[in-house]
């Protein structure tokens, strides 16, 4: 049975979704969804261990052999992405019972859990598959479920932001599909490994260049790389808190993985960074994104929106790492994908706790919360320190690797940009900390701490920020293995 785990990790959440639709009430769907997320985490852990031993796993879907049938191919890079998605889901789903219980209409809760399962299936599917067209299918599954999840927010603006995301996301998916179609026209294959073998012969054709352009723009829309980030702030702000935590921690990371997979495995490093000037383009956009989004974040009146802009800046770090085109840069990008999921997950979940008690996440509503809700705010501070990149947190590890990668190639400008952007993170996190801990609220009565059902999952992720910041064997080990495999697989 264990050989089938590679496909079951996608099939279990995919089939749980229609089952959830058939269930009634709010507790039974929640229990099933949580059980699914935990079993998915167990499978993901098993697959990571397996990949570290064997290096690569392959599974022929439907029994049709590789270049013709759909192949699921797992190596260190996608095993790591699956692990991060599964980890976040396993923490967010227990949290969703109380958080979404208050923020989402009870009638819509089974549907919400079904959409969460579809999102999980989509994201895990993108990272499981070794087939370029299959990526598109799962990209659509995950995107469509994200649109519905965002539209569930209580604020009416959730609808318009979901619609806006739908338009932008569909354009991105269409671009991606056009790119895949051009590659198919050029090579006659959709299997990633097969594509990688055939592309070098036709690398200098205009079709290959056009395909790469469409693919990169399409993926960057999903990734929310500056200046294609416009859908992100509203979508994250108006979605229910549990949805924001789940989507913010996973969706853009998986898009970053797709970008890495296409640039490194399919096109290969010589084409992406030699034949095309993608390294320079992505680097410039990443740096602008880091600086502009951090600067915008400082002045946001809503804490959720502030973190949304900070996410755009963090996407910049990831893109910067992968655009460096070195083993060290790629390691930093993969590490930051993983680590950013941990910190943003913890931060958005802490904000969800605040929304649960206070009913709003506006920065001026946070006055005095440090005293009223010490545990929630402490988790927020841990996440914030990690976001800034303070030693002993995961944020430090990934930024350290990013700086080392930039240093290796003598890019002093990039190091300056990373440091400036981190300093801006200090400013916007400190702004919240100062208001929460050092100001008294005049208008609001004293509130109590949130129940353990919310606090425990939040602290689990906050502690993961510290744990993986101190014991880096697992994360750096996989990231390094993945980066070497990805660079080595270049023709």
């Amino acid at each position, binding site marked *: 049975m264990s050989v*089938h785990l590679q*496909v*079951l990790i996608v*099939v279990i959440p*995919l*089939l749980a*979704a*229609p*089952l959830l*639709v*058939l269930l009634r009430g709010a507790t039974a769907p929640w229990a099933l969804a949580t059980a699914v997320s935990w079993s998915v985490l167990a499978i993901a852990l098993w697959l990571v261990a397996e990949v570290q031993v064997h290096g690569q796993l392959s*599974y*022929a*879907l*439907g*029994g049709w052999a590789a270049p013709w049938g759909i192949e699921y191919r797992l190596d260190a890079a996608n095993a790591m992405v699956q692990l991060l998605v599964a980890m976040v889901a396993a923490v967010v789903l227990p949290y969703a019972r109380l958080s979404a219980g208050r923020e989402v209409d009870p009638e819509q809760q089974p549907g919400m859990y079904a959409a969460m399962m579809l999102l999980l299936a989509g994201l895990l599917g993108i990272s499981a598959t070794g087939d370029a067209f299959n990526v598109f299918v799962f990209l659509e599954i995950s995107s469509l479920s994200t649109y519905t999840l965002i539209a569930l927010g209580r604020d009416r603006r959730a609808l318009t932001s979901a619609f806006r995301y739908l338009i932008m996301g569909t354009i991105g998916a269409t671009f991606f599909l056009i790119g895949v179609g051009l590659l198919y026209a050029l090579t006659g294959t959709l299997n990633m490994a097969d594509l990688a073998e055939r592309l070098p012969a036709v690398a200098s054709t205009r079709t290959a260049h056009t395909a790469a352009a469409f693919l990169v723009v399409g993926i960057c829309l999903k990734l929310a790389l500056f200046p294609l980030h416009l859908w992100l702030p509203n979508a994250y702000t108006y979605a229910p808190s549990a949805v924001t935590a789940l989507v913010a921690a996973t969706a853009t990371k998986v898009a970053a993985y797709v970008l890495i997979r296409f640039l490194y495995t399919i096109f290969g490093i010589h084409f992406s960074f030699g034949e095309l000037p993608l390294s320079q383009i992505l680097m410039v956009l990443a740096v602008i994104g880091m600086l502009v989004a951090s600067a915008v974040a400082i002045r946001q009146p809503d804490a959720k929106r502030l973190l949304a802009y900070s996410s755009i800046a963090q996407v910049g770090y990831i893109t910067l790492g992968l655009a460096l085109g070195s083993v060290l840069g790629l390691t930093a990008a993969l590490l930051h994908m993983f680590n950013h999921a941990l910190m943003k997950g913890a931060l958005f979940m802490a904000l969800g706790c605040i929304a649960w008690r206070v009913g709003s996440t506006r920065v001026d509503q946070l006055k005095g919360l440090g005293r009223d809700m010490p545990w929630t705010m402490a988790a927020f501070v841990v996440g914030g320190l990690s976001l800034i990149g303070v030693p002993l947190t995961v944020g430090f590890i990934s930024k350290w690797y990013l700086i080392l990668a930039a240093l290796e190639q003598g890019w002093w400008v990039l190091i300056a940009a990373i440091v400036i952007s981190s300093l801006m993170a200090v400013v916007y996190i400190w702004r919240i900390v100062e208001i929460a801990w050092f100001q008294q609220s005049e208008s609001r009565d004293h509130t109590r701490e949130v129940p353990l059902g919310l606090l425990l999952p939040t602290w689990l992720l906050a502690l993961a920020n510290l744990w993986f910041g101190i014991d880096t064997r697992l994360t750096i080990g996989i990231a390094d293995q993945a980066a070497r495999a990805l660079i080595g697989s270049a023709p």
Partner: protein
Amino acid sequence: MHDSLILRVVAKFLIPVIVLFGLYVVFHGKLGPGGAFQAGVILASALIVHMLVFGPDETRRVAPVAVLRGLAAVGVLLYGGTGLISLALGANYLDYNPIGSTPVSGQYFGILLVEIGVCITVASTMALLALLFAERVRT
């Protein structure tokens, strides 16, 4: 709603024929033109004709929204469940060969189950969309 005897009688004649044609397309899909998506849309059009002629309330009585929603989920489960059957029989996911006595009949029954699943989901989702839109227009 304006009531027309001719429309009602013609619709009563048409609906069974549409359903029959829909079933023909799903079972004949692998031999000739057609397939589960088309069959699902044809089946749904029978319900939509019903809705246009007899009104959404009457259609909701024939095909309640809750049932349609359940059927939409059941279709997906049928598709995915076919894959689980192949897993249980020791083959890879969605490998239909072991489902029948020979690989050819296995592929035949496997794809038929999958097509029926797709057909159920497409038909109920299309009908659901039409019914929900009709409700929206009225309010």
